């Protein structure tokens, strides 16, 4: 008897079938907004290099209502991206200290502490 295995076609909207895949796809989508924000920062650097009038027009565009809304949307996605990534760090970076595994909460907490520290350094540097 000859075999005739049946191969099922993949569903186009497979990720809508379970909430775990929806959250995963949202996390993947955050990369797009983080990429767009990086492009905005790069554009800012280019405008800064071009001279004062160009830089000031860039600042004016970034401070306009559409500019602020865009940055808030990017911030929301960046927070979602960071929080979900920090939650996964104990899996990617398990630590064993003196023969005992470090609790996951401590690893996640260390990432938040580093995040706050780096943010403070950047804010202080910007202030000065």
């Amino acid at each position: 008897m000859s075999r005739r295995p049946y191969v099922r076609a993949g569903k186009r909207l497979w990720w809508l079938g379970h909430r775990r895949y929806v959250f995963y796809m949202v996390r993947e989508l955050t990369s797009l907004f983080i990429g767009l924000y990086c492009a905005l920062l790069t554009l800012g650097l280019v405008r800064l290099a071009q001279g004062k009038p160009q830089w000031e027009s860039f600042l004016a565009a970034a401070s306009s209502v559409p500019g602020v809304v865009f940055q808030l949307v990017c911030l929301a996605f960046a927070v979602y991206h960071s929080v979900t990534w920090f939650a996964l760090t104990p899996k990617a970076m398990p630590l064993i200290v003196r023969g005992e595994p470090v609790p996951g909460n401590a690893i996640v907490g260390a990432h938040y502490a580093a995040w706050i520290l780096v943010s403070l350094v950047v804010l202080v540097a910007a202030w000065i």
Partner: protein
Amino acid sequence: MRNEITVEVLRYHPEKDSEPHFQLYTVPYREDWVVLDALNHIKDHIDGTLSYRWSCHMAVCGSCGMMINGEPKLSCNAFLRDYCKEASVRIEPLEHFPIERDLVIVMDSFMKKLSSVKPYVIAKEEKPLSEGQYVQTPPQLQIFKQYTQCINCLLCYAACPQIGLNRDFVGPAALALAHRYNLDSRDGGKEQRADTVASNEGVWECTFAGACSEVCPKDVDPAAAIQQMKISASVDWFKAHLLPGGNK
């Protein structure tokens, strides 16, 4: 309490069916029955042509993985009482695998992937029997013990969206086993496994959806193993390409 429950089973007989179709069965409802008991009832009393794999009935052999209401589960570990509020229980073969017949999948691709990661201890240095066994301390065992629990049930492959998109991805269970042996203090085969582990179809195909670890019935956590191997593979790459004499 209900006396009966409806079970929808995806049937496929290659001799006469051009494609799979659902068939409905009504089986007795028992609080202590699992889905596998319902299938055994169908096989023994209603329709002897139904094909499916099973063996131990206690979540050890890893044979009876199926999609149960869309979720990959061991059918011996899924109680009917957890589905009693649903209109029916829908049983399908594991996703992302060809169907051989009814609920039986073709798992040849997995067997090839599994053997490609050399899932056995490759001794660092062969020593004669007269020198005794390769000793390992409990803390050394603890580092990888979690990954030894894998029963190759393939629920993780059915849950993994990357397997759905690229069937060549080595996948969660095989990579978790590669990690298990790489972490073993007696093992020296990491470089031999790197050809598969660090290839495009290896750990880099994983996008950390994490579904494999969620559905694993033995808490193996393949997603963690793969992320740890990504870090390890990156460190090895930098050592080989950036350190003086690293390529030697």
